[in-house]
């Protein structure tokens, strides 16, 4: 069994799709519907990779990335977004600046995502 991937997205359809794609690819998955829940699950499950949306209620992805990186600086994070911006800055770019290892725009090909997950876990010591 490959490592655990934590999926964070408030959209049910997105979560279910990613869970299905990664499970089919042989990964273990856990899901959170916002940043606050993601931090709780992170402490409890100690995942290898976190895939997080950026615009979410309760606690958004940008804040979540910052807190996750604070807790474990070498945690692999993949940020994803439907293209919304904060002010004039592209949120994906902002996520990358805050330490997201990879960024991916929705909608994506399944293969694109599994490749990023694979690269993240493979790079892990």
């Amino acid at each position, binding site marked *: 069994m490959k490592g655990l991937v934590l999926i964070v997205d408030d959209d049910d*359809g*997105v979560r279910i799709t990613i869970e299905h794609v990664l499970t089919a690819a042989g990964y273990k998955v856990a899901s959170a519907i916002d940043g606050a829940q993601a931090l709780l699950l992170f402490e409890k499950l100690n995942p290898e990779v976190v895939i997080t949306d950026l*615009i979410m209620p309760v606690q958004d992805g940008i804040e979540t990335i910052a807190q996750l990186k604070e807790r474990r600086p070498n945690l692999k994070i993949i940020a994803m977004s439907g*293209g*919304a911006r904060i002010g004039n800055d592209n949120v994906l770019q902002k996520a990358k600046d805050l330490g997201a290892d990879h960024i991916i725009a929705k*909608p994506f*090909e399944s293969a694109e995502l599994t490749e990023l997950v694979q690269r993240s876990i493979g790079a892990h010591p």
Partner: protein
Amino acid sequence: MTRKAAARIEIAPSRPAAVFDARAVLENTSDSVCVLDRNWTWTYANHRARQDIAGGRDVLGQNLWAMFPQLEQSGIGLALRVAMSNGHPLETEGVHPVTGEWFSAEIHPLSGGLSVFFRKSRKEEIALAARERRFHAMFSTMTQGIVFHDRDGAIIEANPAAEQILGISKAEMRAVKSGALGLKLTDENGALIEREKIPAEVALRSGQTVRNTIVTFLNRTTGERRWLSVDAIPQFDSNGAVLSHAYTLFRDVTAHKQAEHALEHSQAHLALAQRVAAVGSTVIDFQSGEWEWSDETYRIFGVSKKDFCPSLEAILGLIHEKDRSVFRDAMEAASRGVVPYPIEFRVHKPNGTDRIIYHEADAIRDRFGAVTGIIATNSDITDLRAAEREREALQNQLYHAQRLDSLGTLAGGIAHDLNNTLVPILGLSEAMLKGADADSPQRPLLEVIHQAGARARDLVRQILTFSRRENPDNRVVMISGFVRESMRLARASVPTTITIEERIGDVAPIMGDASQLHQVVLNLIANAAQAIGENIGRITVEVADDHRNCTDEGKGRSSFVRISVEDTGSGMDELTQKRMFEPFYTTRKVGVGTGLGLSVVHGIVAAHGGHIEVKSRLGHGSRFDVFLPIYVSEGEATNANGDPR
């Protein structure tokens, strides 16, 4: 009476002893005494008579009438004949036909002739005295000042008006040995008048009359500046040869000059006000048919006073052909008392420029209310109108930009949600396709779902491009290279009925995303081809530097590269031009094209800090000019220090 008594003594023969004495007395009297016999022959003439009447000639024995034929027709001649014939004494008066002087004569018949006493009339003296009094009264009471100068210019005499006007007494004047009277005389412009230029001095020196010289001075008594109009007249002795003296005649023209200056000041003020306000005036007098233009009006119409004489016909010649009737109708109505102002008309200035004139007027009426003329103002409102148009255009642009911006925000929001929605549609249909058997009846249906999802994804991507949600991948781009590349692709998609002309110059590099810019060129060419349709036409693609003085929102960029795509297609109406960049606005049939092509172009160009200008004429084609700021490297930007490349 004494003289008469003496004369009678002479003619009284009863006392001969006195004759000798009487003759001596007669000889010395100041009257002219003569005795004529019955044949009018002189028998005696005393010294005065010989001198005054005969001019020193010897008269004794001469015939009176032969000697003075002019006496025949005179009053005295008649009196002499009467006295001689009737023997009665006679007194008469008149102008002496020989001496020309006024005289009185007493004629006394004698036994053998006549004795005649001529005396200068006292009337002459009385007349002289009266004349003297008249002249003196005039001299003393005239409002003009008069001073008499001797040959050296010194004052001999001055009248009270002169004293009053000059503010100096006669005694003071006399003390000054100059025509300037000790005053500092200046001319109209305030320049000191030198002594040799003073009218009295000029008259004395040249012997010529000097007239209407304007001099000014400070009246010492009142402390006021006064203006005088001065005449100086030289005077000669009785035979007219020798300059004996001169007199200066002057009147105070201060009030006149002050009024003149006030008028000049007022006129200058008006002219300046017109100049500052850029408003000229016209006054038309219907009776004389005269048109009076102010200087500013000449300037506004672009003609000079020297070359142009204002009249209806002449002005119509300056006015734009299409506006002449407006002006003519207004003038015609005004002459009937109807004033249909204000009007506007275009004027073609001789220097080749066209200006718009705003013309406002009112009727001039006499006291009976009849219209006698027009007073009008003219102002050049060309710049004002241009500014208004510019403001309108800017307002439209702003409105347009705001509209596009809000559309972009809306589209971006929708796109974000759609992208989330598309994740399961694409991801799960793909997963299901993988799991489905090759011959599963579900497979073609899943493929339709997946393809539809993919189409929706592409569409959303374009919307995001328009709404600038996708950042350009910034690299230094050599425009001419990638445009040539785009042209190759474009040719393949454009029908052969359309000629594509390339005018691609080598231009400065820009910073941008080549693939996005590539899409800009392709979209514009596709749009141009669409406008030409199935007709024969031409698309011209041009790339050139554009060094217009245009800054990009204060970022200091001042030079642009221009990519132009021009077509000979159908062109766009106003509505289309206003809305062409809006997403989903299309003139194509439903189902043909997405209506996103130009929105995408707009989004990409805006994301690159550029802008688009569009010129289009319905039925003649369109031209899209895309301006992209050129790339200035950090070093260059610093070195250039804002100097446009």
